[in-house]
């Protein structure tokens, strides 16, 4: 019984080891070693989308404001 448990544990550990983790696949150092032709073929997986409040530089007429009007 104990040996079967050990076998099961070994099986699970092997499976966990075999499935790659979610760590970043490309570090910047790896990218810097690639030729430019290869960089052009890479697909980004996450886009940078700054929130509206973080836009820089601010528009010439100043930051957008919300106008509040009291109901008559």
């Amino acid at each position, binding site marked *: 019984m104990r040996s*079967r448990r050990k076998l*099961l544990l070994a*099986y*699970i550990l092997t*499976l*966990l080891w075999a*499935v*790659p*983790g*979610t*760590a*970043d*696949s*490309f*570090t*910047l*150092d790896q*990218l*810097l070693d*690639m030729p*430019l*032709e290869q*960089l*052009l*073929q*890479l*697909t*980004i*997986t*996450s*886009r*940078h989308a*700054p929130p509206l409040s*973080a*836009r*820089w*530089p601010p*528009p*010439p007429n100043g930051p957008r404001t919300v106008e509040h009007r009291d109901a008559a």
Partner: protein
Amino acid sequence: MPRSTRMAAWCLSLALLAFAPAAVSDDLPEYRLKAAFLYNFALFTEWPADLGATLNLCVYGRDPFGEEIDALQGKPVGARRIVVRRFTSIEGLSVCQVVFIVNPSGDGISRVLSALHGASVLTVADAPGAARQGVALNMNLVNNKITFEANLTAVRAANLTLSSKLLSLATEVLP
């Protein structure tokens, strides 16, 4: 082995296999790849001989790279080493050799280009139409891949030369 244990093992196996495709896909954030392009732009540029031992790579505006670009610190470009610097005012940009202009829009970009006029500075941006506005190299996202265009007038005005290899890979080269 008890039946329940065997079932649990099979369920775990199936779960791991189901999530495996997501796990193996490459995680590549936009600005990590753009930092690599910036480095290549510096590599494929012919710099003035009297530049000194460092090449200041500056980010002007609200930095979208974060720590991704810090990894370029000290990387070699020929005999020089990159120094990453961040600026929020135009006045400091005179020390830069590469300036990445963040989110150029409106008269912001023309003010930066005016301030750098005549200086040996490679201007880079990632905004649609920035090359036509006078930025030397502009990155675009097409189908989540990065392409770039070059403005030779801007490059010549900065007394710089881009390698023919870099230009051959540009999607558009403005004369």
